[in-house]
């Protein structure tokens, strides 16, 4: 019989094995496939951050693309206006995203919940998009803002391969950080709010603050993903953070598995890679994307993570949403 500690230890080993194997990935790529691999790392964080709110906290929300945009613009503005190296803009993007998380969820402190809070987050996202477009002096308006890709602390960040290693390190740190957060008292409180907020409050847990904390952590992770996206594309445009992006992010969380860390990785990887295979059929991408999402959710309503969990108990997660 396998002990809980043994399973946890195995899970930890697997957690570190995946990025170690990934270190060799650039040997097999060309600049195009490298670009896609880098996008997978970015979307892993985007999905993970989104999943914390809609999966672990159980709050329907639409502000994810706002956090993504805030991080991207914070990084681009800090690079271009303040002349900071890109690596130094990462904490700025994370903090800006966390601030965005606070602003989007501040209504929760006044007792706003569920669909009402969801609408507030939607309005926040739209407000941010309006801001990117109209604050031209700061954001470059509709022409976007270029992101300088020079050498940062000896790293040639214009190279897709170097970007990959930097993104991989950041992604590993944030995934590990999220796993630890979810295991902590705060994480358990987040799950408890999802399961029964009144019961949680009766235990003396300040549920409103817990909701805001989950949003802020989500904003922090997704904000950093935004900084990575800014470097990845070399220029940030308002249209990158619109409704289409939100739908794709939503699909990644659902396909991976609501509230599952492994699912966030799987959903991001699957829905970044698979549409690339239908490039040969122009105009079919949207149909293909829709069919994939429907098929996965019909066959595996708990997402791809549940498929792995079926094969091995080490992939079973306590925080996964049933």
């Amino acid at each position, binding site marked *: 019989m396998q002990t809980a500690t043994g399973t946890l230890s195995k899970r930890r080993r697997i957690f570190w094995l995946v990025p170690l194997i990934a270190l060799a990935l650039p040997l097999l790529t060309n600049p*195009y496939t490298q670009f896609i691999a880098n996008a997978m790392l970015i979307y892993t964080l985007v999905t993970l951050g989104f999943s914390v709110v809609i999966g672990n906290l159980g709050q329907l929300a639409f502000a994810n693309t706002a956090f993504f945009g805030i991080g991207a613009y914070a990084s681009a503005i800090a690079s271009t206006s303040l002349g900071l190296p890109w690596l130094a803009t990462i904490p700025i993007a994370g903090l800006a995203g966390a601030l965005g998380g606070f602003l989007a969820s501040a209504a929760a402190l006044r007792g706003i919940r569920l669909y009402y809070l969801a609408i507030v987050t939607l309005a926040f996202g739209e407000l941010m998009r309006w801001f990117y477009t109209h604050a031209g002096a700061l954001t470059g308006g509709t022409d976007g803002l270029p992101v300088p890709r020079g050498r940062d602390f000896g790293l040639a960040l214009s190279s897709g391969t170097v970007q990959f290693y930097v993104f991989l390190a950041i992604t590993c740190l944030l995934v590990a950080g999220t796993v630890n957060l979810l295991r902590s008292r705060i994480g358990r409180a987040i799950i408890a709010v999802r399961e029964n907020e009144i019961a949680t409050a009766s235990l003396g847990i300040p549920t409103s603050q817990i909701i805001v904390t989950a949003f802020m952590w989500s904003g922090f992770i997704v904000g950093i993903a935004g900084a990575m996206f800014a470097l990845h594309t070399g220029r940030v445009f308002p249209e990158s953070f619109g409704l289409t992006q939100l739908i794709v992010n939503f699909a990644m969380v659902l396909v991976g598995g609501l509230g599952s860390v492994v699912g966030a990785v799987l959903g991001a990887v699957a829905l970044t890679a698979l549409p690339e295979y239908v490039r040969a059929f122009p105009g079919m*991408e949207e149909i293909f994307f829709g069919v994939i999402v429907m098929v996965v959710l019909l066959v595996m309503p708990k997402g791809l993570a549940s498929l792995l969990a079926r094969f091995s108990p080490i992939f079973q997660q306590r925080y996964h949403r049933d």
Partner: protein
Amino acid sequence: MKFKLKKLGLLVGLTLAATGSAAADETTGLTDDAIKIGVMGPFSGNASSYSKAEIGLMAYFQMINDEGGIHGRKLVAVQEDTACDPAKALAAAKKLIYQDEVFMLHGNSCSGAAIAIKPDIVEAGLPWIVAHAVSDTISVPPVKNIFHGVPTGNTNGEAMAAFVLSKPGTKNVAIVEHSNDWAHSYTNPARAYLKENGVEPVAELVMERGQTDATAQVLKLRQANPDFIIGALYEAETAIFLRDMKKYGLDIPVMGTAGTDLENTLKRVGDLDTVQNYFVLHSYVDNLDGPLLKKWADMIHKYYPDEALTNFSYISIGSGVALVEALKAAGPDLTRAKLIAELDKIKALDTGILSSPITWSPEERRGVKSSAVAGFVDGEPTVLKAWGTPY
């Protein structure tokens, strides 16, 4: 542990060395019987109607192939979808350059997507003819391998303002636009041209995409009482704007962009009365159903029988004609450098479809420097040089 770390370091080092960017090969994408050309466009997404520009271009390539190709080589188009999204466009460009290994790139609707991929294409060094996106940022300042084959935003904006001022007695001009780069690429040069000619807009209004009512804008315009309105709006919003102008009895001419089609706008609003004072930029030598465009319409329908033709269907063909001229001149021993040199020799090329000729040089890569206008004259769509002056 030390040993493992060393191994890991070696692996990373080898990887970095192995994936360093290689210099572009001069004959990549060429075989004895084919020239591989990457054609990028928004084949999906909410701007997919622009992909008609790429369909027209590919029909032209097929016609050239049916006529025997160029120096025994067929033009093989490799399509890639950008969805008008900068990140997707980057993936598409990288795939065409590094995986499909095309000889050159041609096409591209959507300025945002084109601006995003520009640095990668400059670095890769392969020739790129921009056949639809209009932003001047793409070809200004000029770089060695980028050629603009359509009137750019500056040219279009100036042409719009010039037409507006060609109407006798025009002193007050108003601007209604979307708040996006597409609209600004028309209205900013138009503003500059108006200013040069001593005209300051009497009203500058925004109508957002997806807006279904233009009452607020129309009422403000009634107050401002302009002689002419410059409208940088997509087709759906243009129809709404014209409908509401009629509803509130505002009988002022409106100058629209190349992003709207005169006949389509008529179809959308349903009556000639509403559009009889509406003018659009028109980059062609004739009306869409005129005799000079018929051979191009027939060509598109030969290869794409179900294709519904609009203003966009023809826009990329002119730059295709210029490409074929340059490929012929470059001779059978084609290289990327030779093609770029021959494209730079294109001077005042009458493409038989664009209303203005194409001229390229190393100092000026915006090849098309003016645009005509189309409007209804006596109920018939007519191409105009200036107010009351047929093309």
